[in-house]
């Protein structure tokens, strides 16, 4: 359904305002050398598994961009990710399978359009379509696109409420004048800080992580104790006082093995606190300079 012109215009204004630099927009019109293929990862996927297309010559992209801006961006958005009237054409099956305009052409010129859309007919010649294809194919095609519109900060909570929560749930073990003194300076990235305080055991820079401690009570009553190296149902290994790793066989409940994970109190909060609690505590901790 065609929406009212007013809503449409407002939506388009919003869509234009949020355009960031796609690969094509950055490079179009500049005499950029052909980009080197991205380094390939060892296993798994991500963007490198689908090499981006070689860029068309700059003059082709430049002409294509001019056509696109004049004729297409109004509906499909300046970044081709779609607007109120037109679809996202970066992920379009027609565009993805197109090489140099041969699949795009019928949609544009023969009035075939796309089912269920308002796509009108255009009278582009073959060269113009090739230019348009060269421009469209310069957009990065990838769901994981870290260069997109990121929020400026993850700090969205209320520092005062965070201080109150801290007093109730954290102050028994931690002190802002003690172990957490200057934490907001020591870890400058708020998201890193938030991840670390939720579970310091997850590791990472800025916070020294403590290992679980294990206490093993042998059948003769002897107690062995040290930082846990590993445990499964059959063996438990710890670092003894002299630095040597010692492994003890387990058989069900014998010997008795007690684990103390220093971050267990953190884990036990997962089912308890709300996202707001988390945001508030982070908003408080970032102020501890």
């Amino acid at each position, binding site marked *: 359904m065609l929406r009212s012109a007013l809503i449409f215009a407002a939506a388009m204004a919003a869509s234009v305002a949020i355009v960031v630099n796609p690969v094509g927009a950055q490079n179009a019109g500049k005499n950029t050398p052909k980009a080197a293929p991205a380094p390939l990862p060892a*296993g798994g996927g991500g963007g490198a598994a689908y090499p981006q297309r070689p860029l068309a010559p700059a003059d082709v992209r430049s002409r294509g961009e001019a056509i696109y801006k004049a004729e297409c961006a109004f509906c499909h958005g300046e970044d081709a990710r779609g607007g109120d009237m037109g679809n996202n054409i970066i992920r379009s099956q027609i565009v993805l399978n197109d090489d140099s305009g041969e699949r795009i052409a019928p949609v544009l010129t023969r009035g075939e359009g796309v089912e269920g859309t308002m796509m009108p007919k255009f009278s582009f010649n073959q060269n113009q379509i090739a230019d348009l294809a060269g421009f469209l194919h310069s957009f990065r095609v990838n769901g*994981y696109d870290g260069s997109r519109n990121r929020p400026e900060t993850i700090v969205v909570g209320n520092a005062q409420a965070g201080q109150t929560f801290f007093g109730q749930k954290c102050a028994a073990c931690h002190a802002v004048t003690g172990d957490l003194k200057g934490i907001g300076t020591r870890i400058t990235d708020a998201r890193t800080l938030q991840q670390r305080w939720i579970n310091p055991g997850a590791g990472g820079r800025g916070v020294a992580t403590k290992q679980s401690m294990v206490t093993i009570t042998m059948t003769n009553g002897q107690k062995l104790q040290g930082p846990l190296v590993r445990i499964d149902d059959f063996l438990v290994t710890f670092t003894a006082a002299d630095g040597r790793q010692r492994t003890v066989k387990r058989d069900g409940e014998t010997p008795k093995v007690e684990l103390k994970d220093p971050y267990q109190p953190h884990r036990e909060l997962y089912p308890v606190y709300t996202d707001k609690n988390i945001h508030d505590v982070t908003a408080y901790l970032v102020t501890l300079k």
Partner: protein
Amino acid sequence: MKLLAGLLLATAFASAQVDSKLLLQPLGDSWASYSGDYSGKRYSNLKQVTKTNVKNLTLAWTMRITPGAQANNAIVGGEGDGILSFGGGNNIKGAVLQVDGTLYFSTPDNAWAVDARDGRILWHYFWKTRGATHIGSRGMGMYGNWLFFETPDNYLVSLDARTGQERWHKQIAPLEEQYFSTPAPIVVDNHVIVGTGNDLDEPGILQSFDPETGAVQWKFYSVPMKAGDPGLETWANLDAAKHGGGQMWVPGSYDPEARLYYIGTGNPSPAYTGIARGEGDNLYTCSLVAINVDTGKMVWHYQTSPHDTHDADSSQTPILVDGEFNGRPRKMVLTAARNGYFFALDRLTGQHLRTVKYSDAVNWATGINAKGQPVRDPAKDHHIGGSLVSPANSGITNWPPPAYSPDTGLFYVPQNDNYAMYYLTETDPRGAMGLGGKEEQGVGSLGSYITAIDYKTGKIAWRHRFPGNNGGSVMGLLTTSTGLLFGGDLGGNIVAYDATNGKTLWHSHIGAVSNAPETYMLDGHQYLLVASGDALFAFTLY
């Protein structure tokens, strides 16, 4: 005597081929398809290894693979230039077929035949890739002397099982649309049923290929693809539906009487920023669907995650069970979804019978609706400041196969009560594409388990908790008619458990187990076969 020997020989060689009769047999001497048999139970009728003698299992052989073209005598095929390498070839994460003394298995871009008696490589086939995500290969399908496997860059390759020579290869889906293929093909009569995957915004496809010619017999899309298609009303518009995902990553199960193939579909796409999908349920993503194997038409569906927003695909292996429910005999399909909920349905009608929230950690839903479906809590989708959600992206469970024993009536599933912070990283009101728009950072687990669910009562019969808090997950399970349950643990052991209570009975430390254990019979001995990364280990009783 000579005649008898000749007859025995003839019998032995007759079974070298996989036919419909072998495929229809309940799991026993052979392992002829992904789950061993069509039911998905991974319940073996073999009886030699018992709770009493399992402690005597001993290593028969081990072997290690060398993926790639550089391996000795590799048969090389493929459409790529041979330069691209994406790894993943040295990790066995799927099923190993055992047919007449030969094992057949695959990793991304590689396939092998191995002597089941000593692990000697008979042939190795290597595929030169064009690219794509190389995350895993769930194994091969077999029909007659023909093998079928899927390559990451979306080709169905058919090999001659005797020699490893390629018969043909056919494209499953365009690499240009960023598909990648992990499933094991499933052979049903003269259909080779093939799924694929995608992390951009392209539609889920299940296809049937002709085993002889490789011609496409039918194609089923898990999302509406044209005006008038059912389910379109659950999407913002046709373009959203056609880019709505619903991938079929993991093979399904099959009921030969109903001629229905049951498969779980993947998450809707874009996965996290679902604005462009509309507010509807986004059918038929995150659903269990029943597909007629002859026509490719969907007979019923049940959605296990309406309008998912956490990439929590429902592509777990469904298990077909004939049993009692509320005092009445039922043909059922059971599934434990990645989202932390277990479902029992009537598999002929799709009627919902039971939902069990099998993880206490799960917090993305506010409850269960009248249809038995979890109700998503939009506040737990994600947040600019982060939202603490269980499960983490990897799910309470994932592709590793569950198992079911008709003797105990229990459904066994790997469970990991993991949490992650989901950060919204896309302020564009149109959202992102594919898996974009959020960054998920794990904060660990409250515990990992093997969990035994009693579908009749909806209760957890037992949980075997792994010590510590390392948050790993078991890579799949096998159960037997002698009351055993096998699976790798989180410490690098292959373990035999008592299926009635989860108590450990035997273990061997072989390194991190990377697939679901299997069992078969050879020369009068029962074998246990399991993979650890690039190695296979075969145990037996002498």
